[in-house]
Every structure is written in structure tokens, then in C-alpha cells.
């Protein structure tokens, strides 16, 4: 048991202090590429001999970013830009910033204008991702990115290296999916905070190393008997649900996260890169195959049924919709998901979060009430 807690503690520390990881990589002579939400071709970064490093904002005050963004933009964008402007990310060799939502489009442009010492590389996903023309378009975008990254690292991205990276990342995804299942079975061993830390830490580590550690955690858990959970099993959905304060409130109310539909979490690992002789096409097909994400074109609103099915499959008795403040895509989806949850007899609560939030009292009250509803 202590072995399990020790291993969890390692990843908790990584998740809580990513700056240390960044320092360590650079000290080892590695180049690090910041990868902003929601999807970046991290495999290409690895194939270029560099380390992909997740940047999803931070719990911090903003000040310089106010010169670029009016107040009504999500904290993920504002705090990420703040970190760039304030020098906190100076050790990065470049950042990859997608254009998956309107705020991200502005983030890329503002980064380019304001953070002159860290080159910005746009990642332009097609929204008509499933049509052949979309797959070809994305494949070409990825090739352009590979060329840029190769220039930065001085190591050209070869197709062989990229196929190897895809293999490594798919292996990592499989381990993460298994971890999610295990965390659902062992909420007594893995708290919401620990569950998040295990997942989030993967964004700051070598994927093979992270997969190895997580596999060990899975093995440790499996040694233990599965115990019935006296609390409430829930599914969490949203862009990001990593606030320690929020996760503590979930634990305090005996919520067990038996599944997530969170952009920073399972959206990163629920869809493998399929096999294709052309690795760029393979990466493009992964995006084409993705379903149920708020920033990927979803005219049938499959996200709603995905959430309901996922909740049912894992015995979740309720859904916690973690609404990132000022996030339009999630705001548009909310009523559709609420309706689907209602129809399926699944109670749903909407909790607004913001990386600049200091007080979680409102969330606490809402979640306490929700716990009562589920009881």
C-alpha cells in the first residue's frame, strides 16, 4: 500500500510542480515544446527529438495578459499567455497553439505579438475533419509542423521515428485507459486528486516513463480487493477539472470519479492513432476518428450520448459538468447535455471553475447539495 502511495506521490509532485520538470529536461540538454489545448501532435515533437510539454494555464493572477485580452476570456488562455509574457516559460523552445476555438485563435496571435522570445507554431485542424480533403489538409499541416520542429531541434523528423512515436503514444494511451478503469474500481485507493495527478503528470513527462510508472500503479491496485464504495459514483465532464480545491471538495463529499469526459484527461487518450503507412495521415485520421469533443465539429451532438453511455457503463449515478468560465464551446453544449442526462434519469450539476478563482464556496455548496440529491 505504501508502495502505491509512494508511486502516486511521485506523480502528484510532478503534476503540482511542472516547472521542475521543465528545468530538469532542459538541464539534461533536451529541448521542450509547449503544447497548448486542446490537441497537439505530440508524437511529432517526440519524433523531432524534443519533449512535448502540456501548457493548460495555471492557478495564478494575470497582469501582463490584460494588455492583450479583455477580461472575458478563459483563464486557460489568459494564464498561459501570462506565463509566456512573464518569462516563466522561457526555457521552452517553441509553443504549439491550435485554433480549435475562437479564444485559442486569439491566444496564438497574442502570443506571436507579445512573447517574441518563444516561437509560436499554429496547429490548424480542419473542422470538416472526416472528409478526405480534411484528412489530406491536416496531414499537410502536420508535415509543415514537422519541418518547423525539425529545424528547431536540428533533427529532421523521419517517418520511421514518427511511426515509433505513434506506437509509444498509443501504448501510453492504452495504459491511461486502463488506469481510468482501475481508478473507477478502486476509489478507496485513488482519490479524485490522485486520479487527476496521475493523468495530468503525463503531460510533463516522457510518455514511456510515465506509462511505466502508471502500469506499476495499476499493478499495485490490482493486488488489493475491490471494495464497495459507500459514496457517490460520478462522471466528470468539461475542459479541465484539475483544481486541487475542487478535487478536494469532491473527495470530502465522497464522490468517486468513475469516468471522465474531460479535454485535459480522457479526450487525450480515448482515441488511438490508427495504423497507416503514412504516419502523417495516421495522425490526421486520429482527429477524424475522434467523437464527442466540444471543439470538434459534432452536428449530431454525439458528446451527449457519449456521456450518458459512459456514465451508465461505469455505474455513475450523476454527472458533474465542470464549466470553464468563459468557455463558449462548453456553454453551447451544456443545455444539450443536460437534456440528454435528464432523459436518461441522470442528475447533472453545473459547476463553474476559473483558474483565477480564490473561493470555491459556491462550488462546495452546489456539490454538497448534489451529494444529497444522489444519496
Amino acid at each position, binding site marked *: 500500500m505504501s508502495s502505491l502511495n509512494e508511486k502516486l506521490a511521485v506523480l502528484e509532485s510532478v503534476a503540482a510542480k511542472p516547472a521542475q520538470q521543465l528545468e530538469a529536461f532542459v538541464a539534461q540538454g533536451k529541448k521542450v515544446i509547449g503544447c497548448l489545448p486542446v490537441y497537439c501532435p505530440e508524437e511529432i515533437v517526440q519524433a523531432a527529438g524534443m519533449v512535448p510539454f502540456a501548457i493548460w494555464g495555471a492557478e495564478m493572477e494575470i497582469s501582463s495578459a490584460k*494588455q*492583450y*485580452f*479583455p477580461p*472575458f*476570456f478563459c483563464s486557460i488562455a489568459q494564464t498561459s499567455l501570462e506565463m509566456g509574457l512573464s518569462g516563466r516559460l522561457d526555457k521552452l523552445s517553441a509553443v504549439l497553439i491550435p*485554433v*480549435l*476555438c*475562437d*479564444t485559442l*485563435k*486569439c*491566444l*496564438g*496571435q*497574442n502570443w*506571436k*505579438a*507579445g512573447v517574441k522570445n518563444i516561437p*509560436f507554431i*499554429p496547429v*490548424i*485542424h*480542419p*473542422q*470538416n475533419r472526416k*472528409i*478526405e*480533403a*480534411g484528412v*489530406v*489538409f491536416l496531414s*499537410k*499541416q502536420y508535415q509543415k509542423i514537422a519541418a518547423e520542429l525539425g529545424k528547431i531541434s536540428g533533427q529532421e523528423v523521419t517517418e520511421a521515428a514518427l511511426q515509433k512515436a505513434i506506437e509509444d503514444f498509443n501504448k501510453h494511451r492504452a495504459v491511461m485507459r486502463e488506469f481510468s478503469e482501475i481508478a473507477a474500481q478502486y476509489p478507496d485507493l485513488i482519490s479524485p486528486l490522485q486520479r487527476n495527478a496521475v493523468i495530468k503528470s503525463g503531460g510533463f513527462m516522457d510518455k514511456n516513463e510515465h506509462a511505466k510508472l502508471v502500469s506499476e500503479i495499476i499493478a499495485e491496485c490490482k493486488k488489493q480487493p475491490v471494495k464497495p464504495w459507500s459514496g457517490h459514483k460520478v462522471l466528470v465532464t468539461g475542459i479541465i477539472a484539475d483544481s486541487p480545491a475542487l478535487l478536494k471538495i469532491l473527495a470530502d463529499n465522497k464522490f468517486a470519479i468513475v469516468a471522465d469526459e474531460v479535454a485535459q484527461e480522457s479526450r487525450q487518450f480515448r482515441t488511438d492513432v490508427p495504423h497507416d503507412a503514412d504516419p502523417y495521415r495516421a495522425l490526421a485520421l486520429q482527429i477524424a476518428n475522434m467523437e464527442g469533443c*466540444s*471543439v470538434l*465539429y*459534432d*452536428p*449530431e*451532438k454525439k458528446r451527449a450520448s457519449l456521456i450518458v453511455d459512459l456514465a451508465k457503463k461505469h455505474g455513475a449515478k450523476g454527472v458533474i459538468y465542470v*464549466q470553464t*468560465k*468563459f468557455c*463558449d*464551446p462548453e*456553454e*453551447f*453544449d*451544456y*443545455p*444539450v447535455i*443536460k437534456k440528454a442526462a435528464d432523459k436518461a434519469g441522470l442528475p447533472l450539476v453545473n459547476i463553474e471553475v476559473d483558474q483565477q478563482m480564490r473561493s470555491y464556496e459556491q462550488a462546495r455548496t452546489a456539490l454538497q447539495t448534489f451529494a444529497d440529491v444522489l444519496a
Partner: protein
Amino acid sequence: MTEQNQAERVPAKILLREIAANAYQKAWDAKNRGEKVGWCASNFPQEIAETLGVAVVYPENQAAAIAAKGGGLRMCEHAEGMGYSNDMCAYSRISLAYADTTVAEEMDMPQPDFLLCCNNICNCMIKWYENIAHDLNIPMILIDIPYKNDYETDDDTVEYVKVQFDQAFKDLEKITGKKFSEERFKEVCAVSQRSAKAWLKAAEYCQYEPSPLNGFDLFNHMAVAVCARGTIEAAEAFEQLAEEFEQAVKDGTSTYKGEQKFRILFEGIACWPYLRATSTPLKENGINVVATVYATAFGVIYNNTAEMMRAYSYVPNCVSVERAADMRIDVGRQNKIDGAVIHTNRSCKLWSGIMPEVERRLRDELKIPTVTFDGDQADPRVFSEAQYNTRIQALAEVMAANKEAAK
């Protein structure tokens, strides 16, 4: 044309108002005939529906009209009652409310049988239309025009957009039963070019000192540039508008009443619920709007299909910060502005999110004072008259001081 004929001619602004109204009437007539009618995004290639003879109406246009006529709050609150956040674009809230209630006394339009969506204006458009497609169980055609970081649109993007453009024709044919005709397509493109050029020409009269038009008028005329620029009536009306401005320049008259002391760029979407409140302080301070980015927005010019794809990718919200800044700097320089008023539109993140940087470049390049004010294109709860008045007053003072210093 003789002076007498010109005096008898219906003024262009009335023609344009009629054209806008007729576009909606055409849609009602089509619906009543049992034809399929669509809701269309403002920057979706209008050549497609026009070529097929399919009637479409424009929810953004409707939302603006509803807001201008005082229905914005009611509709926004209805959407919020449906579970939508008041953080979302007010046009989308009004439209989602309308899809639910199906009535709005300020401006009714037929419910859609299909949706034509293009995200060159924003990605919120996709989410908005996704929800309507889902709620009403109707097909949605999306032409995705990726946002670009480069100044120019590359061939990969043109290729990707062209495939979708061609597919949109096929999909719309299937949905409506109407047939594509190469001849009609060429005709529509030619008329659209005529309209777009005439619109641009009319807007260019703002260069004159004094300007023969009150710049705020452009916001109203814009409706036709959105919803009918593929029609011969629109082309003729814009040409007439340009002729009227030409005549006004000769006569030394203007639709701006009073002395034009200062010339400004008005940046952003109009505050539709507050047209009077936003125009009056300008008038009181002798300020005329002589530049907006709207002229270029709907001046969609092309000589062939590849150029058409590029033209639709150069609309203001689809371009890099450098190109966005240049669009304002160029029109500001050309039209000799003394200052700029920037509407920080609470509803539009894509527009507002790069505005601070664009504003800096505008100030640096043209050496002009700028002020911003908080507002919203359609939700009346965001605007403060007091704040606006103070800021316009401040801008007027700086512009006056600059003029003094320049003497």
C-alpha cells in the same frame, strides 16, 4: 441622367431597405410554396444558394434587427432560460431562442429546413448551428475555412475549401431538389462582383473631406451586402448609392448633419440596441465615422474560383493579427482619420481578443488617439451610456488638441 430623373429616383437607402425586406419576403413565399428554406451564416458563400435559386435568411441579420428594435433582452433571457450562458454571443442566444419560440414580433422569418454554416466569421457559428441542427433534426452543411496565421491563404487551404464548396452544392441540391447550372453560377458570380465592387466604391466616398455620408449609415446598408449581394437589385442599388455620394460631393452635401470636425474609424460591430445612444454623442462632438472594416468585409472580390475561396478566407475575423491591423490602418490612412473608437463587444471573443494589439498598431502607425468602450452587439445589458459619453468626450478633446497643435 437628367436632373429631373435623378430627383424622381427613389433614394438608394430606401431601395436598399426594400431589398432587405424583399429577401425575407422571398423566403416566406418559398416556404409557403412548400420549398425548403435555409438559415445561412453571414459570410457563407452566398453564390451557392443564389445559384440554385434556394431561399435563405440570415440569423445574424435577424438578431441585429431584433436587438435594434428592442427585443434583444427578451430573447437573450429566453435563451438563458433554456440553459444558455449569458457569456455566449448574443446573436446566437437570440437565434437559439427564436428557433425555440418561432416568433419575434420585431422580425419574424421562416424556420429552417437546413443550415448553411461557415466559420470564417467564428467557430461559435459552428456550435450555434450544431445545436439548431440537433434540436430541429435538420441537415447542416459546413464549409470550414480554417483560421490562418499567415498573411496570405495558401494553396492547401484553397484546395480544402474548394472541395467543401463543391460538395456544398451537391448536398444542397440533394436537400432542396434544385439543380446546379454552370451558366447561372457564372451569372451569379458576375452580379456578386458587380455588387461587391459597387459596395466598396460607395464606402470609398468616406475618403472625401467632408464625407458625403454619415458613416453610421453603412451599418444599415450592410444588411443588403450580407443578404442579397448576389442579386441584380443589390448591384444596382449600391451603384446608385455611389452615384448619390458622387453627386453629394459635387454639391457639397452630406447625410451627416452638422459640421464634420473630426473623422474616425468606428471599430467593431454596431451596438444595435443603442444606435441612437452611440451616434448622438458623435454628432454632438462633430465626429463622423469615415472608416469601418465592414466595407472590406463584404467586398468579396474574385476573378476565378480559387480567388473566390481566398476572398472568403480574408473576411476580417479569419485573418492574422498583422493582416487585421493592416485592414484598419489602410482604411484609416486612406480616409484620413483623426482618431478611432473601438467597441469592445462582449459578444464577440474572436473580434475583441486581438483588438488590444490591433489598437496599439493603429495608434503607433497612424499616430492617432483611440478610445474603447464596453458594449454588446445585441444584449442591451452590457452598454453604459455614461461610459460611452465620457470616452467620446475624451477622444474629442484629444483630437481637438491635436488639430490645434498641428496648426
